[in-house]
């Protein structure tokens, strides 16, 4: 038994190009130009899926983006896509499609037992049942329900499709290529403006494609031909305008014709936007209106005129408006017997005359009482005084038309109700936005074309010069008339009368929501799930809103609408992420020494965006093994480490010293040339921003280093002060972070290492004392040697242009080879500084004050510096602030862990504790675990016993609070 057939009538399918495809394991044929849905209908397939909640058999309801039922899973293996809208999916050779929501098969679906349970599965069922007195009941039921529910299924494999994001610009964006959109595009193109015409279908033309009119087809082709010849016009088929955002940003999603596996998201900036998005037909609500074979009347016309697919013998049309007669007449002209059930009592003479001519019987003042048949409808019973039963293949329904106002709504403009057409139209258009055609409630074809032309002229300056527009030679538009019918279900059948097909929401559910007090449209939506899902209520919203308004005794204009949000139609999440996934999620920053590290056995670790050498395989295979050996190398001999990621800023100008003196808490005004100084800077609020070493190279030139983490922030901060506030200071700052590289040469033998590397330079303690800086040329390359130490050992930093950093590094390694110099990585570097008690990124949580870090004494008493005032506000001076302490493990073999929560020995181990460990390491000098921590009251508690709790591993380790300076407290090694 099949309800549809393909006839010979010429249409938009290409009969010379047959293609085969698969549906639920069987092969079928269709033609180029078919959609998946039209090809399935032509093959007599009307049962395509099961519904979401009750697993009722479902077929195709529409012929476009509004489709709520006929969703299929397409593709195979790793590349399947759930919820493909079969009515918009272009038929491609070899396409594989499967029905959804049916188990074990479409024809015999065990879950259809839910239909019998429908009395208890009404709206709010889940909330009521699983949120009951048993607190955990939802957790128990959820996995079972999730499995039984849901549309389609996501694929667990890595997505193999390709996604791109692109950014474009235009003068006029026209959304929709129906009569209004085509007219707007041609007029705009004639002005020479940069025009983009967007069409979600794979053909331009919109409603013209469904018209069956030769004259309109000629006109359509002429317009497209003119557009194709216009050099400034981009024509985008298979492209959906998903959202309109501030400042005329349109987000488009498109699939290029030649690359079906590629999805592009385009961010298009348009000077003006013309919305010619058309209108969507509404279903009528009556018993069993969801049976396969019950379709939108306009969809029947589309299948006939665009795809040559017609109901086999007889169609019944049920309507409350004039538009359905186009379908009735076209079907009758193609030898389908047609009967019309007409809700209205009177009709225009023209319609009656034409119907009589074509032998169409019209039953006035009646609708549909019930639909007969289950997996495929077989007939209808009329309501009202006619109450006859008519056998038929299909039922075409039309409850009127809803303008596609979605995109105007994205900008926050509420739709408004128009009584005349019984529909919501845009409440207005934003500045530089225009509407044309059915979106405005203008349902006539010639009127739409005129509006399209007018919208383009309004959107463009100088539009008078544009050539007049050619209208197609068709008769004037028929007047449109409608009598709203929101609920045509008989009371006893309300639970089978579907309002939202995709979410199985019936008239009964809406009445239930009203009964329970969910009056507002937003509550109605959440309570019943109406308007959710892939179709977002394109066919259901207005009927439901009207029913609720009726129940509340309000006019529809006062009931309000839900807010439409992007995307307009379903979008693959991958298409939004585009290329920003995996390794491309964020950029990687590489040191100029990166390749050397790779070639010499480094294991890397991410530090912010930087890839840093973590440890080297000369020292061990695991970080635990390696960092201890690398630390020992530095403490006992000499090691070299890459510090290129440090922020490096060149500060120049006659006021440079004054500038630095203002931003650092300690004095820089009198720093002598050839000397470096450790400095700390605060934010305005008195909280520590960053620390680092700044050297005076000449009287007016300084070389600042910052922490790796704060390099960008400090640079912006300096620029902000200089450009927006201290414009009187003669200072310029330049970031050298990427231009210069650096290395730390550390350990008791570091001086000897540098003397071997630069035998002609005087690096004695006298020539280059602690915190001294020298600059020289080595083989023509400018080199800066700064004597400073992060590890607490005698140490130097050697900086030069990034171009020569690797050469210089290799030179030092080679020259000092006989000493046993080797590279050490970030783990050892960090461990060494913890032993020395130097704070770093992990300890600085952007809440510390100078005093919290034990650095209060650094600040100048008599000088002004940023943050000085607010540093002394009450909160920052509170006695119980979390401040820096050292911690020593008191349990042999027990590990201290970063993030461990600290408690006093007598505390109950519960809650947030008195502080936490910020950095931790094994100390090779002390032979125990040591840590830096922030602790309530800080060093006031020095010597007290504490517990380091790590609940994730159920550990409570005994430890003691000590000074954060674990080694060489007098600094003898530094000054050696």
């Amino acid at each position, binding site marked *: 038994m099949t309800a549809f057939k393909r006839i010979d009538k010429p249409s938009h399918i290409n009969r010379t190009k047959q293609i085969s495809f698969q549906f639920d394991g069987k092969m079928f044929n269709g033609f180029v130009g078919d959609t998946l849905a039209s090809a399935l209908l032509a093959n007599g397939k009307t049962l395509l899926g099961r519904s979401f909640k009750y697993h009722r058999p479902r077929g195709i309801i529409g012929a476009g983006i509004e489709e709520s039922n006929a969703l299929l899973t397409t593709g195979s293996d790793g590349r399947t896509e759930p919820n493909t809208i079969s009515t918009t999916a272009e038929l491609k050779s070899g396409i594989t499609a499967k029905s959804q929501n049916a188990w074990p098969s479409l024809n015999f679906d065990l879950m259809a037992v839910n239909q019998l349970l429908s009395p208890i599965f009404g709206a709010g069922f889940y909330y009521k049942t699983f949120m009951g007195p048993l607190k955990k009941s939802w957790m128990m039921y959820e996995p079972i329900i999730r499995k039984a529910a849901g549309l389609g299924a996501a694929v667990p494999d890595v997505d193999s499709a390709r996604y791109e994001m692109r950014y474009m610009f235009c003068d006029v964006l026209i959304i929709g290529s129906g009569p209004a959109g085509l007219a707007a595009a041609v007029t705009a193109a004639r002005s020479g403006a940069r025009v983009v015409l967007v069409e979600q279908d794979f053909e331009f033309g919109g409603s013209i494609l469904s018209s069956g009119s030769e004259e309109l087809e000629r006109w359509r082709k002429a317009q497209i031909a003119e557009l194709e010849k216009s050099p400034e016009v981009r024509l985008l088929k298979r492209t959906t305008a998903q959202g309109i955002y501030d400042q005329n940003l349109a987000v488009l999603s498109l699939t290029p014709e030649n690359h079906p596996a590629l999805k592009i998201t385009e961010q298009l900036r348009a000077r003006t936007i013309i919305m010619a998005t058309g209108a969507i037909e509404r279903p009528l609500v009556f018993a069993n209106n969801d049976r396969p074979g019950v379709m939108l009347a306009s969809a029947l016309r589309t299948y006939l005129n665009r795809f040559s697919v017609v109901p086999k013998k007889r169609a019944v049309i049920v309507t409350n408006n004039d538009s359905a007669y186009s379908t009735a007449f076209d079907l009758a002209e193609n030898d389908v017997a047609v009967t019309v059930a007409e809700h209205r009592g009177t009709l225009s003479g023209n319609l009656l005359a034409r119907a009589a001519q074509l032998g169409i019987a019209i039953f006035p003042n009646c609708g549909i009482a019930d639909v007969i048949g289950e997996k495929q409808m077989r007939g209808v019973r009329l309501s009202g005084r006619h109450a006859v039963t008519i056998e038929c293949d299909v039922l075409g329904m039309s409850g009127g038309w809803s303008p596609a106002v979605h995109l105007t709504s994205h900008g926050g403009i509420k739709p408004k109700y128009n009584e005349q057409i019984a529909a919501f139209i845009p409440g207005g258009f934003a500045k530089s936005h225009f509407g044309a055609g059915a979106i405005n409630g203008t349902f006539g074809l010639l009127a739409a074309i005129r509006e399209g032309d007018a919208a383009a002229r309004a959107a463009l300056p100088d539009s008078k010069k544009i050539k007049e527009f050619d209208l197609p030679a068709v008769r004037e538009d028929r007047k449109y008339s409608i009598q709203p019918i929101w609920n045509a279900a008989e009371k006893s059948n309300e639970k089978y009368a579907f309002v939202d097909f995709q979410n199985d929401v019936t008239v009964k559910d809406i009445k239930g929501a009203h009964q329970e007090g969910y009056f507002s449209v937003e509550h109605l939506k959440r309570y019943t799930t109406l308007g959710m899902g892939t179709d977002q209520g394109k066919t259901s919203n207005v009927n439901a809103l009207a029913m609720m308004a009726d129940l509340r005794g309000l006019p529809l204009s006062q009931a309000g609408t839900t807010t439409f949000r992007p995307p307009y139609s379903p979008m693959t999440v991958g298409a939004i992420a585009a290329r920003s996934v995996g390794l491309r999620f964020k950029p990687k920053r590489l040191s100029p020494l990166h390749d050397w590290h790779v070639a010499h056995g480094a294991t890397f670790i991410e530090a912010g965006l930087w890839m840093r050498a973590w440890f080297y395989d000369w020292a061990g295979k695991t970080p635990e093994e390696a960092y201890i050996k690398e630390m020992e190398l530095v403490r006992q001999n000499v090691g070299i480490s890459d510090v290129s990621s440090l922020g490096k800023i060149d500060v120049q100008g006659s006021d440079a010293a004054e500038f630095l003196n203002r931003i650092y808490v300690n004095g820089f005004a009198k720093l002598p040339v050839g000397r470096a100084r450790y400095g700390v800077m605060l934010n305005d609020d008195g909280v520590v921003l960053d620390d680092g070493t700044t050297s005076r190279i000449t009287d007016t030139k300084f070389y600042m280093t910052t922490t790796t983490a704060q390099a960008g922030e400090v640079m*912006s901060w300096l620029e902000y002060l200089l450009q927006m506030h201290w414009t009187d200071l003669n200072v310029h700052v330049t970031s050298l972070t990427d231009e210069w590289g650096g290395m730390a040469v550390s350990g008791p033998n570091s001086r000897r290492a540098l003397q071997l590397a630069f035998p002609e330079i005087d690096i004695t303690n006298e020539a280059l004392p602690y915190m001294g800086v020298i600059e020289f040329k080595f083989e023509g390359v400018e080199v800066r040697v700064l004597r400073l130490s992060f590890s607490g050992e005698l140490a130097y930093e050697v900086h030069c242009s990034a171009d020569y950093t690797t050469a210089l590094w290799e030179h030092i390694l080679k020259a000092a080879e006989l000493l046993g110099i080797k590279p050490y990585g970030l783990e050892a570097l960090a461990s060494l500084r913890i032993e020395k008690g130097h704070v770093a990124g992990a300890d600085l949580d952007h809440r510390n004050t100078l005093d919290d870090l034990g650095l209060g004494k650094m600040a100048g008493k008599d000088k002004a510096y940023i943050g000085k005032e607010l540093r002394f506000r009450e909160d920052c001076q509170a006695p119980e602030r979390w401040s820096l302490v050292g911690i020593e493990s008191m349990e042999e073999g027990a590990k201290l862990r970063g993030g461990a929560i600290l408690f006093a020995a007598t505390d109950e181990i519960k809650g947030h504790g008195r502080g936490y460990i910020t950095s931790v390491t094994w100390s090779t000098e002390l032979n125990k675990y040591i840590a830096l921590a922030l602790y309530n009251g800080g060093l006031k508690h020095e010597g007290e016993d504490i517990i380091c709790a790590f609940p994730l591993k159920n550990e409570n380790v005994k430890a003691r609070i000590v000074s954060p300076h674990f080694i060489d407290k007098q600094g003898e090694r530094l000054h050696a």
Partner: protein
Amino acid sequence: MRIPCPHCGERDVAEFRYGGDASNVRPSHGSGDLKQWHDYKFIFDNPQGPHLEYWQHVYGCRQWFKLNRNTATNEIVGGER
């Protein structure tokens, strides 16, 4: 959002960083007045509508500037260097 950089012209917001409310006047350096600095740093209006704010063309010319942006519509009303 598109932001007009006074030096480079209109560019995508991704090239900029936001630098906070620009309607408060920064006290003079080293004023020593705690109340003044407190109000400057912590007391802001939260208007729906025009809002004077700092922006930096951080992935461009690195120019800082003031921008008058409507917080409700993202419309740029004006700017100053």
